[in-house]
């Protein structure tokens, strides 16, 4: 299953599952990362660093290593 950091920039995708430790998972969900959400990777800053994700008309930056808990599928 592909995860968020592995997405190509600009590729529309759908969130399938959110894993990770409870507090981070809850935090992500409260920011709008719930299964079914459509999102896009806007920026990947250097190898293994920060990601900027667009979802629900807003943006969030996450660390790539930590964002592996977000499983996605690419949309056509």
């Amino acid at each position: 299953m592909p995860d968020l950091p592995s997405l190509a920039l600009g590729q529309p995708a759908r969130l399938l599952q959110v894993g990770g430790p409870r507090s981070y998972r809850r935090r992500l969900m409260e920011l709008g990362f719930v299964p079914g959400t459509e999102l896009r990777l806007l920026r990947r800053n250097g190898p293994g660093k920060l990601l900027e994700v667009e979802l629900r008309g807003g943006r969030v930056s996450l660390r790539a290593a930590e964002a592996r808990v977000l499983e996605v599928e690419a949309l056509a």
Partner: protein
Amino acid sequence: MNTPLVALTGNPNCGKTTLFNALTGANAKVGNYPGITVERREGRLLLGHDAVRLLDVPGTCSLSARTAEEQIAVSALAGLDGGEHPDAVLLVADATQLSRHLYLVLQVLELGLPVVLVLNMLDEVERADLAVDLDVLRQALGVPVVAVSAAQGRGLDEVRRALEKVLRDPAAATSARVDGAPSGALAEVIEHVGQALPGDWVAPHAARRDGLARWALLSVEPDDELAAVPAALREAAQAGRERLEAAGHDVDLELIAPRWAWIDELLARAMGDKRTVIRKVTDALDKLLIHPVIGLALFLLVMTLLFESLFTWASPAIDLVDGVVSSFGQLVGGWLPEGLFRDFLTDGLIAGVGAVLVFLPQIVLLFFFLSLLEDSGYMARAAYLMDRLMKSLGLTGRAFVPLLSGFACAIPAIMATRTMERRRDRLLVMMVVPLTTCSARLPVYTLIIAALFPGPDEAGGQLFAGLSLQSGLMVAFYVFGTVVALLAAGVFGRTILRGSSPPLVLELPPYRLPRWRSVFRTMWERSRLFVSEAGTVILVCTVVLWALLAFPQEAPVSPELQAERGAVQSELDTLSEAQVAQVGNTPDAPDGSARALPGTEVVSGLQEQLAVLDARAEGERLRASYAGQLGRAIEPLIQPLGFDWRIGIGLLGSFAAREVFVSTMGVVYGVGDEADETSGSLKNGLREARWPDGSKVFTPLVGLSLMVFFALAAQCMSTLAVVKRETASWGWPLFLMTYMTVFAWVGAFAVYQGGRFLGYG
């Protein structure tokens, strides 16, 4: 009836403080950096003839609060800590990111509070050609909705009107659960947890029981740091969660996902497909500004420019303040008769006020730059860029802003840690921030460097082209403080404050042109904080130190000195008599030449001798003063660092506040009121100071040792007081003081003894 209380809340950076200022005309601080409002701040708002109290609450994305300031927000809304319940809530949402911000709106509505929803940033919405159907929102949410531009002051009257109506008829603006009630096992558990809620949380609106139960179910976890949650509720929430999980439920998902589904459906109706603001400028700028290489280079450039202008602009202002204060002291000294009261006023009080004011130029300037960076949106990028470095030290990018403020003053820096999530992270930053080179160290460094190291025009004063030894030293000590602070964070983060900081979630706000009024407001606010927190302590300490130096007044002067002084005095007396008597005829005298022409140079020579003896007498008095006794008592401790008892007095004073050292040195070396770090007399006083064996006290090596001591020691009472307040413990401030003092001693010892071993000094 009491004046009604209205809480102003919303997501971070949605413009709450701007709205607060626009509505109340107050001067709360604003910044385009999430988490600027870190305290409760109240203002008065006039609705027709009635006043209401408006409470500016820190921003939060959700009520499941994590950071210290989010907890302040939640407590203010729900009255968790037994505080006052607000009569109504002004809930601000950024209309350009409505989806995200509606999540908090739903949570607040669930608490059963009367709400006026304010959609802010109307100007940006219009510019982006978006449209929000307010009626759809009103109908779906069941509360009044107003669109405003807080920055332009548009729509404020509507806000007032809506608020007035809500306060008159709260029920019309209250709308508990809008997105449908859960069913089955989850509903049962919510019901059950609701029973465990403390009575005073639920009291005014029984409707909020469900909302609070859901809040507890979502927020309570073993390490949540929620101090306000009573044990019974904690147990009920945890037991409920375990029961549901055992039955295969995903509690968090089932509580959160329906809200999003509802929001998605609502916004499809209220805004259509077009909900995103395209940020062309921001995106273009970010291509450069957070680029891993270019961005970092630009960041270093920004920091260099910042500190460069700090020095070039602050020092004339510092000199000016100094000049004004000392001439004021002399003026007052001239008016008053000589005596204890005059000394108290000039050397105690006025010198104390001067010691506070002398920091202001630098602090004000640094805060000006910080608020500029915050308001433009760059600060969030700086945190973004620094995240990797911070993470390698066991911190998050969010630690960067407090650390940077530390270069002005540790006090606002420590208060800024409230934007951080975990107590461990906050503590870690609080423990190392006092090591960054705050502006109080500057006068001390300036004095020592100017007195003990060759200036740019003297031999050995140039390091290499363009960089003088003196500025090189200054830069070196800034770097030294920063490196030690970062290293200390790395060490503490792996030992006493072990643990990892939570995963990073950061929002990069769009770049905005800074609004000058708000930049100046922020600058003013924080400088005021410094004056009120540190100013009083510094002032009191200067006065106490003056008293310790001035008493006992009548110290016995040693007989030898007295005899010597008597001899010179009588010689001078006879001489002047002779001068008077000498009208034309030359009296024969044993040593004819001198008597024959009692020239002015002889008289002035004797007078000089007398002055030296007086200074020695003053030195003896100082030695016998309470401060002198203390200084001599600690001399054995500091002698290995190359310091004598007089430096000891300065060090004792500087434990109250660092720059007190400069004025103390002025008193100790008997150069009077006009002592400041640039005054030539103080410099000379230091250069001439001798040990009893006649060797110089102040060699460049001692200067280095002293500067290392000041770089590392926790010499600031106000910082310790703020750490005590923020940690609500004595342990951490004590630890802070102990470890830094030990560091300082060891560091200075290593420099001094190492230098001597290598043959310097």
